């Protein structure tokens, strides 16, 4: 359960897709929000992304990530809604706060774009096993050094979470109060930040030693335990995604 990855093991067509195709989807969906920056189009992309999250059976798992980014989104709305330089058309006012149509429009586009990014990245990370992704990228000629970085970064969050649990347990066994009302928790939390960060740095260093000791940086041609997985309709899907992006560009230019 409490494993060190964000990956959620499920049986879904999205899980069976080539990680590279999912990576392509991330790039394409973000690109499209720039090619066609109108709420209607971005809404469409957003709809498709959430649909894919549902098909991938990871919609629920994406909610915490989306919620976390809501904070960012919310501040965007406030700033754009009030202070956008093109603000002229007064839309409505709550007390002394005046909302302008122009600002809100820009804010809406930004919010939707961030949602697309977060959604598409969640789709990739939640439905793709780390090893499958790294293996696929290395087979495509990516340097193991970059694999190193990807592995470390993906490990960082769960690793910190695990360290936190370990230290909290130690604190509790020494009689430090770690549960109860918010204030108690916050008080218990702050002294943790230092050790958790230090410990994570140390563990990251140790893990790269472990990777070295397994010959990860070997210049030799790697072999693979599992035969290259067959990804059905890979070319077709990749072509489809590329096609839609091109269509978007054409639409933008001539439409």
């Amino acid at each position, binding site marked *: 359960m409490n494993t060190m990855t964000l990956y959620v093991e499920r049986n879904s067509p999205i899980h069976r897709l080539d990680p590279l195709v999912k990576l392509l989807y991330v790039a394409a969906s973000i690109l499209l929000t720039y090619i066609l920056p109108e709420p209607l189009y971005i809404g469409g992309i957003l709809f498709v992304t959430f649909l894919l999250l549902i098909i991938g059976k990871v919609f629920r798992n994406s909610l915490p990530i989306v919620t976390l980014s809501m904070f960012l989104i919310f501040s965007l709305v406030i700033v754009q809604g009030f202070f956008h330089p093109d603000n002229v058309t007064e839309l409505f006012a709550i007390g002394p706060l005046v909302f302008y149509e122009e600002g809100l429009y820009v804010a809406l586009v930004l919010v939707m774009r961030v949602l697309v990014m977060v959604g598409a990245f969640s789709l990739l990370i939640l439905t793709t096993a780390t*090893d499958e992704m790294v293996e696929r990228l290395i087979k495509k000629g990516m340097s193991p050094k970059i694999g190193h970085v990807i592995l470390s970064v993906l490990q960082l969050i769960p690793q910190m979470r695990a360290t936190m649990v370990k230290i909290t347990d130690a604190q509790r066994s020494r009689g430090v109060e770690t549960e109860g009302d918010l204030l108690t928790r916050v008080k218990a939390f702050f002294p943790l930040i230092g050790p958790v960060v230090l410990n994570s740095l*140390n563990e990251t260093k140790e*893990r790269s030693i472990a990777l070295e000791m*397994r*010959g*990860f940086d*070997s210049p030799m041609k790697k*072999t*693979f*335990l599992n035969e290259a997985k067959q990804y059905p309709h890979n070319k077709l899907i990749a072509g489809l995604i590329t096609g839609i992006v091109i269509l978007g560009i054409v639409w933008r230019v001539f439409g």
Partner: protein
Amino acid sequence: MSVIEVENLKYRYPDTTTLVLDDLSFSVEKGECLGIVGENTAGKSTLCYALAGLVPHFYKGAYGGKVTVNGLVVREHEIATIVENIGLVFENPFSQMTGAKQTVYGEVAFGLENMGLPRKNMHTRIEKYLKLLDVYSVKDKNPFDLSGGQMQRVAIASVLAMEPEVLILDEPTSQLDPQGSKDVFKVIEQLTGKGMTIILVEHKMEQIAQYADRVLLLHEGKQIDLDTPEKIFSRLDLKEFGVRPPVVTSIAQALTIRYPDTQLYPVTIQEFKRLEEMK
């Protein structure tokens, strides 16, 4: 020929001024188990790094002298080549799980993939070492879901599967619970029995006394002594180096139970009993 030869090894970490390894010279024979003892910061881990090539390839710094492992001069080869000759397992089982694989089976395969071992040879190797380390039953689990003792045995299996000539264990049980430690030492016993060349850094002197053929005593980076466990643990000045002898040796000293010929004290319970009966 010796499997490991160390000649006048000196080393200083980058941006520091003191030698962490100060003129070490020794060799390790095939099939031997060499214990390394010394207080914290004596330089034990750094010596392990120097044998495995992490010094000077991963940790740069000032390096002098020569280390040869299985005929390879460590300084002149990359780590990836050296690790096929010498494997390193260290303290923290958690950080030795690479995170590159979803299962224990894959974790053990990882080093073999990097070595470029043909796929058809992988399965027999992996299964052999999973069974040897008694972790075959958890082969489909996620490595991070294991207990510390199991993780450490998976780490050992992953390194051994690459079939190095020498295995270095740097305090392999210091972060494990008693049962986990016991399981790991059972494996060490098996490996020494099979004639594997082992370098064991350990704070539990009872274990050093039990498994080591010879013991290297380090202090502030200097090689104080290199001799049999009986010789090392019979030294009266051992405390000065932050090392305490096994409990049986202390008792033997108090009761002056010793080998009649050499006047040394016994270091294991079995020997203690034998000498006591003789007395």
